[in-house]
C-alpha cells in the first residue's frame, strides 16, 4: 500500500466542532496519485464536513493539509485560492451558477480565476462538456437541464481547472435512480483515466468495483479502512460490511 514518493494529498488530525457538536475527531488520511478512496458511512458521520474541511470551505478547528508535500497555508488568501484551484469539488446538489449556461458555467473560472482569454476558455469548456457527453447541451441553462446533466456540467466545470485531485460529496444522492448511471459512468471514466479522487457515496456496488480503499466513517472518525474486498466481502465481519448489507437490503439492487 505505502509507496515511497510522497502522497499527492495528506490530511492530518482534522478536527471540527459545529454548534457544540464534535463533527470531526482528528481525522487523517492520505492519497497517492491515481487513487480512488471512497468514504462511506451513515448520514451525519462527518463525510461531507471532512471533504469541505479538506479544501477549507469549512475552516477546520485543527489539522493540516499537504498537497504534493507542501503544506497549505489556509490563512494566506493567495495560497488558499491557488490550492482550491487544484482541488476539484463536486457537490451533492450541483451548485451550478443559475444565471450562466452550461458553457459559461464551465468557462467562468477559467476566465476569472485562471485569466484565460475568452476564446480559449470557450474551447476548453466545449471540450470538457463533450467529455461528459453534453456537447449538444452547451447553451442550455441549469434550469433547463436534468439532475444528471447538471451534475455532469459540474464535473466538467471542475475538470476544466485541471485539478490534481477531486473531492466528490455524494454526487448521486440528489438524483433520481434512473439518472445515477450517467453520472457514475463519468466518474468511472475519470477513475480509469487515473484521476485521484475522494468520493463520499452510498453506491456500494460502484465502490466495490472501483475503490482502491474504503474508509468507513462514523461519529466523526474513520473507524475502518481497507481494500473493498477485505471490508465489504460477504464473509467479513466488519462494521462496513454490516452497514453496506443494510443499504443493499434497503435498495435491493446495485449488484
Amino acid at each position: 500500500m505505502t509507496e515511497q514518493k510522497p502522497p499527492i494529498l495528506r490530511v492530518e488530525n482534522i478536527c471540527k466542532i459545529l454548534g457544540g457538536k464534535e463533527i470531526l475527531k482528528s481525522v487523517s488520511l492520505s492519497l497517492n496519485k491515481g487513487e480512488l478512496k471512497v468514504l462511506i458511512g451513515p448520514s451525519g458521520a462527518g463525510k461531507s464536513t471532512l471533504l469541505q474541511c479538506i479544501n477549507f470551505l469549512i475552516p477546520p478547528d485543527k489539522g493540516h493539509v499537504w498537497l504534493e508535500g507542501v503544506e497549505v497555508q489556509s490563512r494566506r488568501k493567495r495560497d488558499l485560492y491557488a490550492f482550491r484551484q487544484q482541488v476539484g469539488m463536486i457537490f451533492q446538489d450541483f451548485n451550478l451558477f443559475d444565471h450562466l449556461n452550461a458553457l459559461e458555467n464551465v468557462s467562468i473560472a477559467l476566465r476569472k480565476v485562471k485569466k484565460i482569454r475568452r476564446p480559449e476558455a470557450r474551447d476548453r469548456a466545449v471540450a470538457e462538456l463533450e467529455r461528459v457527453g453534453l456537447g449538444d447541451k452547451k447553451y442550455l441553462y441549469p434550469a433547463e437541464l436534468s439532475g444528471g446533466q447538471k451534475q455532469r456540467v459540474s464535473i466538467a466545470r471542475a475538470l476544466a481547472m485541471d485539478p490534481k485531485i477531486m473531492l466528490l460529496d455524494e454526487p448521486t444522492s440528489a438524483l433520481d435512480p434512473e439518472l445515477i448511471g450517467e453520472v457514475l459512468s463519468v466518474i468511472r471514466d475519470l477513475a480509469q483515466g487515473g484521476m485521484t479522487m475522494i468520493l463520499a457515496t452510498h453506491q456500494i456496488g460502484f465502490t466495490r468495483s472501483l475503490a482502491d480503499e474504503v474508509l468507513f466513517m462514523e461519529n466523526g472518525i474513520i473507524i475502518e479502512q481497507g481494500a473493498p474486498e477485505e471490508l465489504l466481502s460477504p464473509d467479513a465481519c466488519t462494521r462496513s460490511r454490516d452497514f453496506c448489507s443494510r443499504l443493499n437490503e434497503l435498495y435491493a439492487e446495485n449488484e
Partner: protein
Amino acid sequence: MLEALAAVLEALPYLLKGALATSGIVIGAMGFGLVLGIHMAVGQVFGNRIVRWFIGLYVWFFRGVPVLVLLFLFYFGLFALIGLNLSAFAASTLVLGMATAAYQSQIFRGAILSLPQGQLQAARALGMSDIKAIINIILPQALRFSIPGWSNEYSIILKDSALAFVLGTSEIMARSHFVASRTYHYLPLYITAGFLYFILTWLGVRALLKLEAKVRIPGYSQ
C-alpha cells in the same frame, strides 16, 4: 373651462421643463442609491461586525426620518455646516439619493440572501476570492431578482421628488404651483402635475418590466 385648458396648454412647455428636472432628480437619486445600495448590501451580508454596524446605523437613520425632514436637515443644516454649497437641485438629488440608498440596500440584501448558498461555495471551491464570486456569481443574480423591488422604489422616489419643491427646486410641483398661484387655475394645473407624475411612473415601470424580461434567466418559469 376653455380658459383653464388654455392656461394649461400655455404652461405646458414650462411644466415639461419641470418634468425634465424631476427626471434628473430621480435618475440621479436612483443611480446614487443603486451604487451605494449595492455596496451597502454586500457589506451587510459579507462584511465584518463593524461594517455591518455602520451600515445598520445608516439604514436605521435614513429609514427612520421623513424625507422632508432630511431635506431641511441637510440643505439648511448639515450642508451649510460643512460649507458644502449645493444648488437646490443638487441637494435634493443627493438627499433623495442617500435616502433611497438605505431602502435599495435592503432590496439587494434580500435578493442576495435569497440565493442558494451553494453557489458561493462552488465559486470558492473553484479558487475564486469572495470579491470575484460576489461580482461574477452573486450580484448578476441578485440584481436580476431585485428589479421588481427596484421598480417599486423608483415609483416611490419619483413621487418623493415632489418634496424638492420645498427647497426651491424648479421641478414639476414647484412649476405647477407657481403657474397656479399666478393664474388661479389651481385644479387644472395640479391635475396636470399629477398626470405628469403618472406618465413618468408608467414609463419607468414599463421600462423596468422590459428590462426584467430581457435579463430573465432561461428556464425559470414566469
